């Protein structure tokens, strides 16, 4: 273990020596674009130990969904892993052939997307989806497979707050919140070690979102899940995760325990993102934006990717990549991090 980003002070964390569930090292992913290759993920390190819950936050184009797709081996045509490793339970997925990847999906890692409506086949009842997923990875066939699958489905539907008779419903008869719950239940059929939620509650109304978030929080404990939560909403990440990793233009710029990072961000981008987020408490104020736009990722800058939008940037920031600083379970990739002088 070259280094350890886990925060020793975060309560209930397994010992650092536990074998990681997911270990991403130096991951680089690029996409084909008319003007060249877009560097979507530029050398990402991320380690999730058993029971860990990590939120990956960032804006559109930051590369957060690309990370998830790379983990699942689901990059679209034109996208490829250029370098690095994605180790799931010790095995590097980037070199696995497709037929072996299939054995990994659902069983060891499952992913829940934003649009549940398009994840289900409209002409099949929920029950058929559970039976399909069951059969794909189990030896049983025929009626036995069906009855075992449905037995498991009933347990899971109840766990996500749905009535077991939802099995007999067609997707279009269910509300968005019920479908999203059903999709989470479906992802848990084979008891995956890693669950990836990619904006899984973003399309829901706030009341329904609160219901689903509290159910997921319970599932994390009951099913001993290791979760990677991808969201643009720092509130959602705070609700579900112990740690947060902030992604900007394909680079992790900051990582650490959620509450520490949100209360005292060290990277100027994290600080700006937290300030831009409107709060229900505290003084009413004029909202702050982050002026400027993402750099052109077909020609990534030599220096810090955030330098052009950064209020603290100096000449040195544009010349070379910023240093990475690790301390107290936190990581920050910045030449002039906030709170540095005070010894944070």
């Amino acid at each position, binding site marked *: 273990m070259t280094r350890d980003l886990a925060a020793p002070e975060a309560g209930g964390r397994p010992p650092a020596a536990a074998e990681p569930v997911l270990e991403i090292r130096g991951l680089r992913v690029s996409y084909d674009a008319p003007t060249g290759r877009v560097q979507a993920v530029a050398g990402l390190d991320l380690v999730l130990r058993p029971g860990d819950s990590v939120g990956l936050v960032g804006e559109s184009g930051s590369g957060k969904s690309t990370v998830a797709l790379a983990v699942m081996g689901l990059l679209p045509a034109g996208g490829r892993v250029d370098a690095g490793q994605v180790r799931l339970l010790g095995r590097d997925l980037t070199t696995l052939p497709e037929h072996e990847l299939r054995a990994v999906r659902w069983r060891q890692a499952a992913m829940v997307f934003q649009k549940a409506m398009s994840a289900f086949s409209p002409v099949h009842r929920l029950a058929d989806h559970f039976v399909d997923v069951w059969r794909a990875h189990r030896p049983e066939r025929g009626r036995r497979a069906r009855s075992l699958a449905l037995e498991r489905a009933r347990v899971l539907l109840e766990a996500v707050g749905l009535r077991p008779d939802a099995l007999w419903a067609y997707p279009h008869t269910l509300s968005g919140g019920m479908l999203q719950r059903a999709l989470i239940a479906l992802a848990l059929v084979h008891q995956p070690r890693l669950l990836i939620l990619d904006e899984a509650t973003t399309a829901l109304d706030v009341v329904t979102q*609160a219901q689903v978030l509290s159910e997921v929080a319970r599932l994390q404990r009951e099913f001993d899940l290791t979760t990677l939560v991808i969201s*643009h909403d720092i509130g959602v990440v705070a609700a579900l995760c112990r740690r947060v990793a902030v992604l900007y233009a394909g680079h992790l710029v900051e990582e650490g325990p959620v509450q520490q990072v*949100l209360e005292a961000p060290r990277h100027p981008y994290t600080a*700006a993102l937290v300030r831009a987020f409107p709060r229900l408490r505290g003084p009413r104020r004029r*909202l702050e934006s982050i002026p400027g736009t993402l750099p052109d990722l077909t020609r990534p800058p030599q220096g810090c990717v955030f330098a052009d939008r950064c209020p603290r940037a100096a000449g040195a920031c544009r010349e070379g990549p910023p240093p990475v600083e690790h301390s107290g379970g936190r990581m920050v990739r910045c030449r002039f991090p906030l709170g540095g002088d005070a010894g944070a």
Partner: protein
Amino acid sequence: MPDVARQHDGARQPLIEARGLHRWYGSGRSLLARRPPLRAVDGVDLVVYPGEIVGLIGESGCGKSTLGRLLVRLEAPTAGTIAFAGRDITHLRGRRLRALRRQIQVIFQNPFETFDPRYRLRQALYDPLRIHGLPDAERRIAEVMERAGLPVDRYLDRYPRELSGGQLQRAAIARAMLVEPRFVVADEPVSMLDVSVRAEVLNFLLDLRAQRQTAFLFITHDLALARHVCDRIAVMYLGRIVEEGPAELLTSAPRHPYTRALLASVPDPDAGTAASPALRGEPPSPAALGTGCRFAGRCPLASEACRRVEPVLEPAAPGHRVACHFPWEEQRTP
């Protein structure tokens, strides 16, 4: 900002005044059976004063967008009246309706659907001025685009796809403001945008209000956002406004159990855990409303009376109205 709200009790004339507004869909019979109508907007009174930003909050399907469409006369109400600057506009047609469109504009959620992808911004901006026969097109466009942070020399000849979502939404607001409307309905104007660019769009809107006294109905599902942007907030549930009051008061001391539930449901970055859900279940269909309070089925405080008699909006404090038989604060224990 808050001082605007305080002036209401005086003699100021409302800019928009909706009374008993209803919009029902599909009333009557279907092919096979008589079906009850879907009551999207079901008896709304709403007033917006000049220069005021009123937030309209609610979940999907509560009728907030329909109400917005009624106020800009994109749809006709089933019943009720709408007055603009003291004049009844409920049934305006033809030339008079077109003239009204200059006074009342609308901004939608998705700027990429607002603009025709085949035309450059130049065309999209000149059209409204030509339609309304306004002089000085060059100057007006340059002015409003400058304020939108989109200088004409760099942006006027671009196609919509050549702008980012935030830039294009600012262009959409610029276009709406070109004809100098007095009232604008903004329907989820920033919910498609990244948090980092929302502020620039909203602050542009706030600046316009400050300069021109434009009034806004700001439709959103985001209470935290509404708190920072709006003077007043109205909360809608199943076609009716259930609570209405100054933004700060409504978000800090809500009286209606539904408003309280909405507030408790917003994920709080400072809390650090998932809150236990404030409400179970989902709203019933607006086509299947019974008697009594429409929130009674989900309300933790509902009594027999709530299921029999529908509460009406009544003053709870100056400028604060709530439609509930048991508004908060009258409860001894939470």
